[in-house]
């Protein structure tokens, strides 16, 4: 009778590397898409500031681009997060007002931009993951 030897540690490392490739591919696409979303014009109120008109987003739209702070501060976290349950990547938005825009406040309806990765780009992100793990 022959022996069957399985190097479990090596297989787990391989699985981890494959997962990371998929997640990094998703993060690249997701960061590009969320920055595109943040460059959509708004259809809300028009403000004049410093001699320049700015048209804000209306409720339900993503935030309209103003001076580009939100776009610059919204990026893929380069660190892949590993816990006992999962291997995860994340898109972060690091302005003080990112959460208020995404979730809304008592006087402002939400201007979701991160959730749109699920609602608008879910199929594209799943495809990116597949491409990443198969490369």
């Amino acid at each position, binding site marked *: 009778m022959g022996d069957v030897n399985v190097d479990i540690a090596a297989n787990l490392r391989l699985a981890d590397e494959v997962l990371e490739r998929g997640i990094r591919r998703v993060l690249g696409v997701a960061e590009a898409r969320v920055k595109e979303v943040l460059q959509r014009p708004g259809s809300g109120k028009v403000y004049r500031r410093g001699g320049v008109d700015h048209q804000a987003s209306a409720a339900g739209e993503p935030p309209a681009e103003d001076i580009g702070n939100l776009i610059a501060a919204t990026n893929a976290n380069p660190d892949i997060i590993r816990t006992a349950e999962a291997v995860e990547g994340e898109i972060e938005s690091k302005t003080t007002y990112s959460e208020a825009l995404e979730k*809304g406040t008592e006087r402002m309806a939400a201007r979701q931009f991160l959730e749109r990765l699920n609602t608008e780009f879910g199929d594209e992100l799943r495809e990116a993951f597949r491409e990443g793990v198969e490369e």
Partner: protein
Amino acid sequence: MNSTATIFARLAAVASSLATYEGASAIFDETAPDDFLIQDPRPEKPFIVIAAPSSDVALETFTERGRMIVQDVRAYQRRTGSAAELDALMRAVRDLFHNAPETLAVAGGVCDVARVTGPVQSPTSDEAYLGRRITIRLDFRNT
């Protein structure tokens, strides 16, 4: 099927814990009105905002049609040095929905699944207020 109406109807159970506005419990859709928010002093009791759905997708089989809806409910209260009342309110709101689909009134359908996460901290525009938020997932089936 109108999930906001379903949520609004169920929130009647906590009406006595809320501030009032124009003679009714302070439960608003999307945002609270300016004349309510800028009262001086700010309203002492909490008020609730039902957000628009963040996701509303088809939930279909060969024989049945429905929607899976994800929607936030947020509550705010004037800062008093303690969030205990606001936290207690939002835990009560969570318990009105979580795993209690049979208690929900749905025009044109029934609710098969109701799951809630939170309450968690929710941002405010006015630092005079504290905010809390729950996220409700509702699976509605047409009847």
